[in-house]
């Protein structure tokens, strides 16, 4: 049970900083979809905090801007917005794919992308997708009544399991990401079931191919669930960029980053699935670019198809 005395909902950053200055015992929440389940038996148990500061209504945290070269999303934007927005569905297809795998419709209405990043779970679904969009985080703080801003690459913002680079009263204001119009993408995830599922492994793949459809011009791959923090698969990316699109190269790429895996449990399983997901996500992205590869060659390595049986 979460007990608190006061619940504040600041409307702008000034209000927010005034609150953080005047209160000593406080906790920041946004969607509350992680906080309330956390304050229960078996996890944090009964928790008492004097003050709750709900940042989900701060205007700066609700920016939503799509420009030619970048997209700006406030940290209080919900996952449901990523799922339903028409433009995001058309031009940023990786995001609705992530969203549909994220919890369920009801939770998505409340869960914020900022909250997901700041909680920094090793299995955070949003983070790999944002990494493949070259996400930059914009942090706002106040020092001696003076507001300041600092920008970081998302991969540098996440420091470790449940740890991010936020000091004192700093707040994650918004995210800036590449506009990936012209790219094809795919998101693969596996857990224990098909809804309300926490990732065992998830991979985000965003690729661009040459106009003659023969080579990879840009490849971005990121994974979550296999190590302390979600990561870009640099070796695979560097290997594929500029190379011909064929089965052999994809298979070679899939095993290059295996040593990043250091999960606490089920290491062998995650290794196997990561390899398979790299291959599958690239193939699925290529399918969207109307490129089909020879499945039987891939099948000898593993099968991209599913076995469909009745007994």
């Amino acid at each position, binding site marked *: *049970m*979460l*007990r*608190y*005395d*006061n*619940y504040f*909902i600041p409307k702008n950053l000034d209000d927010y900083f005034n609150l953080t200055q005047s209160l000593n015992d406080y906790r920041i*929440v946004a*969607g*509350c*979809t992680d906080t*309330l*389940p956390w304050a*229960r*038996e*078996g996890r944090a148990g*009964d928790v008492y905090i004097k003050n*709750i500061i*709900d940042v*989900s209504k701060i205007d700066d945290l609700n920016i939503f801007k799509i420009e030619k070269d970048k997209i700006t999303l406030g940290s209080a934007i919900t996952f*449901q917005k990523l799922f*339903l*927005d*028409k433009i995001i*569905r*058309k031009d940023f*297809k990786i995001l*609705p*794919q992530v969203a*549909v*795998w994220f*919890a*369920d*419709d*009801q*939770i998505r*209405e*409340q869960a914020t992308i900022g909250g997901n990043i700041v909680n920094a779970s090793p299995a955070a679904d949003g983070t790999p997708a944002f990494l493949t969009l070259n996400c930059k985080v914009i942090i706002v703080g106040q020092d001696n009544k003076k507001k300041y801003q600092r920008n970081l690459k998302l991969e540098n913002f996440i420091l470790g399991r449940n740890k991010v680079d936020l000091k004192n009263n700093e707040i994650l204001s918004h995210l800036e990401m590449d506009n990936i119009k012209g790219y094809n993408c795919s998101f693969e995830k596996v857990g224990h079931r*098909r*809804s*309300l599922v926490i990732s065992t492994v998830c991979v985000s793949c965003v690729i661009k191919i040459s106009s003659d459809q023969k080579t990879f011009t840009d490849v971005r791959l990121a994974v979550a669930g296999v190590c302390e923090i979600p990561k870009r698969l640099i070796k695979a990316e560097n290997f594929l960029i500029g190379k011909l699109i064929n089965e052999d190269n994809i298979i070679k790429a899939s095993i290059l980053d295996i040593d990043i895996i250091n999960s606490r449990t089920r290491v062998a399983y995650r290794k196997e699935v990561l390899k398979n997901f790299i291959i599958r996500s690239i193939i699925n992205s290529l399918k969207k670019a109307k490129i089909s590869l020879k499945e039987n060659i891939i099948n000898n390595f593993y099968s991209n198809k*599913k*076995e*469909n*049986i*009745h*007994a």
Partner: protein
Amino acid sequence: MHKLNIALEINGKKIIREVNSHYRLLDFLREDLDLTGTKEGCGAGECGTCSVFVNGKLVKSCLMPVAKVNGMKIETIEKQGSPDNLSIIQKAFFSQGASQCGFCIPGMVMAATSILRTNPKANIEEIKEEMGGNICRCTGYQKIFEAVEIARDVISGKLNESFFENYEKPEKSYLGANVKRIDAPSKVTGRLKYAADMKMPNMLHMQVFRSSRPHAKIENLNLTKALAVTGVETIVTCNDIPGIDNFGVFIEDQPVLARGKVRYVGEAIAAVAATTLEAAREAISKIEISYKDLPALFDPEEALKDKILIHEEYKTNLVKHIPIRKGNIEKGFANSDLIVEENFTTQQVEHAYLEPMAGLSYVDPDGVLVIISPSQNITHHRHMMSKIMKLPIHKVRFIMSPVGGGFGGKEDMIYQGMLALCAMKTRLPVRYVMTREEDIISTAKRHPSRTNYKIGISKNGKIQAVKLKMICDGGAYGCSTEGVMRKGAILGCGPYKIDNLEVDTIGVYTNNTPSGAFRSFGAFQSEFTTESMLDICAEKLSIDPFEIRRINAFVAGDLTHTKQKLNSASIKTVLSELEKLSSWEKGPSNCRGKNRKDLNSNDNRLSCELGARLSSSSDEISGIK
């Protein structure tokens, strides 16, 4: 307690209230406004029974601090319809038989309402995807999906509303007719009150202090600080029991509250009754205890050695051993062309009825002790309670409250004793509602099993001998272990004529969470092994799985494994009907996978790929806000 003021619109009515500041929207609806159609199945956003509309969006109210909804419009299940005036969606649920225990149904109706409002042309894949946040434990979802599809068609005009009236008019007999469930209207409208929805004037709230050790002596229990918490009316322990302190379905070996020692993590030690839930929880946190840890047993085979005893008075950790013997298995194995030996394990499983345990108790004006609870066996509970409370049996009254799912998990009298004790001590009504977490750690589960199976079979597929030994972890208390072992033994070798068999099912005490009754009670575990073995043998002998079962199936006149003569045995009919129903492609089951010719029938679903709603035209999605 701190309060805050909120103004909002609830089901079309504008209200201003002062509310406990830490309340979630769920608590505000249920406790302050008595809108109990919205349920707390888990409190952690995993089950969907708390779904409500906030400014038109469906959210989980257990994850929504009430402060967040100030100034907003809330719509609950109560707005959707009433038992005599059901919405179309509710009529569809009613006509399709989509409600069983009913606990998840208000949430399902809300989810269906949300889907059809924003996506009136939703196809089945989209419906399934959008209902992914609502769990049902009783229905298997099938009739819920049917109901949503029918509601969609009626709302769009594709199907006439008279469909609901023209539904079934049995002419000759009501037996065999699809009469609509008589309890459905109260369930689809969220009007039915389960125990946690009930309130009584001056009601106290009970909370339970539970063991944090698997096996330990209770050295010192200090209630002083807890008793000093404002609002606490009483704290009860085993010392407050007036009569004989034990209960259990088969063996009465469990004390109402731990006596002298604890035998599993989660065992109840003390119960607090206070004027508010918060005061009760605060008192629990102030109870001081010191344990002396005892060596604990977590493996049933280890426990069988009896080096450590869980219940000293029984001198053994064996709960029950059921032996079944027929014929001569040595001869049988000698006559076999193929002998296969395998080991199987099944896991401990939680009932996960969506309604967490809850109950109320009070002493009525005639001095009768009354307990209202969703118990599966109030008759037996009354017996035990009268003995425990030292009351004549007619002075104990058990009233069954609507059960939000049982499956055997609500057979144990796991909390009613402490609840009754609090009511008797305070002479006030007392209510207890378990959190989901509390329910999971403290209540009985399905017995995990470890089976060693040896089968001897001739090359024409006839079973010559079976040796089945199943060991089950019974956990800290007997519960239904004896019955589960018995049923598992009697049914274990399946519906087959076997002349030589040796079956042993063994239930053992350990310091794990108790195992108890769970739908199919031992037969699930034992028949699983027989059916797996038959397919293993079928493959080795190149016999079709249906055929190998037909070869061995019981017929009328056969003796069962317990030597009972069967007057009738429909297994062969069942098998041949199933072959037809499933368009079974004959042949042994060894990877005919890719070569199967009867895939993609209408009877199965598509593989779930997620993203059904992403492939429909985005113009049709009006849910963009």
